[in-house]
C-alpha cells in the first residue's frame, strides 16, 4: 500500500473511533441498573422506557404533571418524585436524538421514533397484540432489557404477509 492511501485509511479509522462514542450516546440503551422507584412506579403501567429516550426537560415536565399523565392519574408522593427527578436528570438523553423535546413530550412523536417506524402501517399499531406505540415489547423482543435492534424483532400475532414486509426489510 502506498503511503497516501495508508494515511487516508488511518484518518478514516480515527474518524470512526471519534464518531463511535457519539453514536453510542444516541442509542436508547437502558442503564444497567434502573432506579427501583422508576421500576415500581412507572413500569407498573408501561415499559421502563430508557431514560435516554427523552431530554431532561421533557422528563421534568412529565414529573410535574403526573396527576394528568397522558390521560391517567399517575400521581406520586413528593419524595418519590424528587428521587425520580434526580435519577432521570442524571440519565436523560443528551445526544442528537434528545436535542429537541418532542411534541407533548411523547417518545413516540420524536423525530427519530417517527423516522424509524415510518414503514409500519397504521393497521399494525391497531392490532390487539400491539394496541399502542407505547407497547414496545409487542415487536422489540429485548425492550425490557433496553435492546431495540432491528435484527431482534418479533412479528406481533395478527400480522398479514403484506404488513410483515417492514419486518423483513
Amino acid at each position, binding site marked *: 500500500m502506498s503511503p497516501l492511501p495508508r494515511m487516508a485509511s488511518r484518518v478514516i479509522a480515527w474518524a470512526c473511533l471519534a464518531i463511535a462514542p457519539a453514536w453510542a450516546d444516541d442509542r436508547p440503551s437502558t442503564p444497567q441498573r434502573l432506579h*427501583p422507584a422508576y421500576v*415500581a412506579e412507572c*413500569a*407498573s*403501567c*408501561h*415499559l421502563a422506557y430508557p431514560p435516554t429516550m427523552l431530554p431532561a426537560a421533557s422528563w421534568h415536565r412529565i414529573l410535574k404533571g403526573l396527576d394528568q399523565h*397522558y*390521560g*391517567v*392519574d*399517575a*400521581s406520586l408522593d413528593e419524595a418519590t418524585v424528587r428521587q425520580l427527578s434526580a435519577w432521570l436528570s442524571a440519565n436523560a438523553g443528551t445526544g442528537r436524538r434528545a436535542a429537541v423535546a418532542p411534541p407533548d413530550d411523547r417518545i413516540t412523536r420524536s423525530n427519530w421514533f417517527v423516522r424509524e417506524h415510518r414503514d409500519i402501517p397504521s393497521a399494525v399499531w391497531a392490532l390487539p397484540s*400491539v*394496541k*399502542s406505540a*407505547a*407497547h414496545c415489547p*409487542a415487536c422489540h423482543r429485548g425492550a425490557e432489557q433496553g435492546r431495540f435492534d432491528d435484527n431482534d424483532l418479533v412479528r406481533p400475532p395478527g400480522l398479514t404477509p403484506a404488513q410483515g414486509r417492514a419486518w423483513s426489510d
Partner: protein
Amino acid sequence: MNARHTPHRLVRHGTAALLALTLLASLAQAADTTPAAQLERFSQLAGRPGDATRGQAFFTARHGGEWSCSSCHGAPPTTAGRHASTGKRIEPLAPAANPGALTDTAKVDKWFRRNCKDVAQRECTADEKADVLAYLIKVTP
C-alpha cells in the same frame, strides 16, 4: 487452608447473600398486610362489611368514563390483565391467582386513589373499596 475459604468468610458471604435476598424480596413485595386485613380496614371505615356482589358490579361497570376496573384488570381479575392504553401486562389482582396481591397497604391506597380517578373521575368511598375488596377476595380462577 486458603484464606479465601475460611469458615468465617463463608459465613460472612452467606450472611451477605441472605441480606441481599431479603432486600430483594422486600423490594419485590413489601407484604405488610393481608387482603383480609385490608377488607377489615375499609369495612370498619364504611361501618358495614364489604359486599362482594356490589363489589363485582362496581368493578365491571363504567362510571361515566371510558374505562371500568376490568378494562385493565379483566373480568374476572383472576388472570393477567393488560393496561387499557399501553398494553402492558398487569399481574392478576385476585389474591386467589396472585399471592402478592393486596399485601401492601401503601400500594392498596395508592392504586385505589389513582385508578378510581381514572375510572370514576373521583376517589372511591370506603363503602366502594370494601365492596371491591370483598369481591376480589371471593373471586377464584
